[in-house]
């Protein structure tokens, strides 16, 4: 494997690049988006299209639409429903997963049922929940939970099942209490899988947040974007879509920070194993 080393030495970039690390990372992260933005702007100048407005038109609409009152009327309620839904899904998924993962007969009993429920697309629950729970926050939060709980639950079950036998025996021989076992052995050991489950839930959660607001709603991001679309307010509609993307990224970044905190040991362990 000497070829890559040679190539690297011949490339001028690695020798001449004297940028600080953070700037390097920043450029790597936003380089492609900047290029895409430039292409978009260029195409808007060369061939204007009403359905695909120029970036500056959308930027203008963005500020006008979302900065100010609309933030509290539409954005904040949507995002808080999303966060509440995700948090509850995580709590329910982890608690239930701990139970099901620890009790063998229970697992055999409920696993097929889980598979069935997981296969049901949660958007189909929107009309049903509107009938039973009304059109308030509760129904919308329940839709988010119904979709996001499964990845957390199933991953937790797997994580709990795969706790190392020697670690279990160690806990037994040192007479740890059930609570100590859960807190110090089972949960941390399953944490990598639980976090992977939550990560999957984030994107499902955003989708369901929007869908739950497309009908039976008079505020919220999903409602507002649908409203703009039906009234041909194209730049406003696009600004809403972009806002959704921004929320998605913000959520992913926050999650990554949390993960770094919770799974610091795991990354270290993996790096040591690879070395």
């Amino acid at each position, binding site marked *: 494997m000497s070829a890559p080393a040679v190539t690297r030495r011949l490339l001028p970039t690695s020798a001449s690049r004297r940028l600080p690390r953070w700037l390097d990372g920043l450029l790597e992260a936003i380089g492609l988006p900047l290029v895409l933005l430039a292409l978009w702007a260029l195409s808007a100048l060369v061939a204007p299209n009403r359905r695909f407005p120029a970036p500056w038109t959308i930027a203008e609409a963005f500020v006008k639409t979302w900065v100010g009152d609309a933030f509290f009327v539409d954005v904040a309620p949507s995002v808080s429903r999303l966060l509440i839904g995700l948090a509850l899904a995580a709590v329910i998924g982890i608690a239930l997963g701990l139970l099901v993962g620890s009790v063998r007969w229970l697992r055999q009993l409920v696993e097929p049922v889980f598979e069935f429920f997981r296969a049901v697309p949660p958007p189909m629950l929107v009309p049903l929940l509107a009938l039973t729970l009304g059109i308030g926050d509760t129904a919308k939060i329940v839709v988010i939970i119904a979709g996001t709980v499964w990845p957390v639950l199933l991953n937790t079950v797997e994580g709990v099942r795969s706790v*190392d*036998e*020697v*670690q279990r*025996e*160690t806990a*037994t*021989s*040192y*007479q*740890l*209490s059930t609570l*100590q076992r859960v807190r*110090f*052995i089972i949960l*941390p*050991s399953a*944490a990598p899988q639980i976090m992977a489950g939550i990560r999957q839930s984030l994107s499902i959660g955003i989708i369901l947040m929007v869908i739950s607001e497309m009908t039976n709603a008079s505020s919220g991001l999903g409602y507002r974007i649908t409203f703009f679309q039906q009234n041909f307010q194209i730049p406003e509609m696009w600004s809403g879509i972009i806002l959704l993307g921004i929320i998605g990224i913000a959520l992913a970044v926050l999650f990554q920070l949390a993960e770094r905190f919770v799974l610091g*040991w*795991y990354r*270290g*362990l993996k790096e*040591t*194993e690879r070395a």
Partner: protein
Amino acid sequence: MPDQTSSPTALLRVEGLRKSYGDFVTLQNISFTAKQGELICIVGPSGAGKTTLLKCIAGLLAPSGGIIELDGEPVTAPPKKMAVVFQEYGRSLMPWMTVRRNVELPLLRTTPKAERRQLVDKVLDAVGLSAAADKYPWQLSGGMQQRVAIARAVAYSPEVLIMDEPFAAVDAQTRADLEDLVRYIWTKFGVTVIFVTHDIDESVYLGQRVIVLSMPPTVVQEDLTIDLPAERDQLTTRALPRFTELRTHVYAQIQRAKRDNERRPDHEAPAA
């Protein structure tokens, strides 16, 4: 109630212990006693059921018959006053906890914080790991990880310390150091040690007594007193003529165990 004055004579009593898995009898009849403060090595050919015996003693595995008593109380679950050091140090330490947290884990319920801290400092010092207290196990070498496991067991202040081939996975150099550490811990903390190994030299070097196991169905083939000087040293002890005699004797016993097994009419390859 057991007579307290009799406890120094037999802290741990194993009598007629039997363990079978279906038709396969692993342990046929194991009997021995350990006095308070003894260091006993259990050695046997691979497949003799050493780990099975140890897990029965530790209360992690239910025997099929016979008696195991600690301080006159039958062992049916892991006893409070017993600590186990497993062979797989990498799997028995929690990778999400620092060395200090790992060592204090068994003490969380029993010992107040200030006292716990002192105790952990003391045992980490005893195993020579004071500097690594805030590291994670995976940042340490295999030998150091096993030291952490030993420190954790010692901090638990057991009456009986059970070690299951603890040094099978470390290199020879480290192994010699760890053997001396076991002798040091044993002297310093006055704990009774049951040390399981397949290494004949190790058993003779470490033990006051060596119990030789046969092949399955396993019985105690010999219970041998090691009459080497109490002060042991990797160089001088291993160079003693008596050391050589003893190791040759144990070696012959183990060879005999294997040979007897092959002569048996129902001989079959032992399960690992």
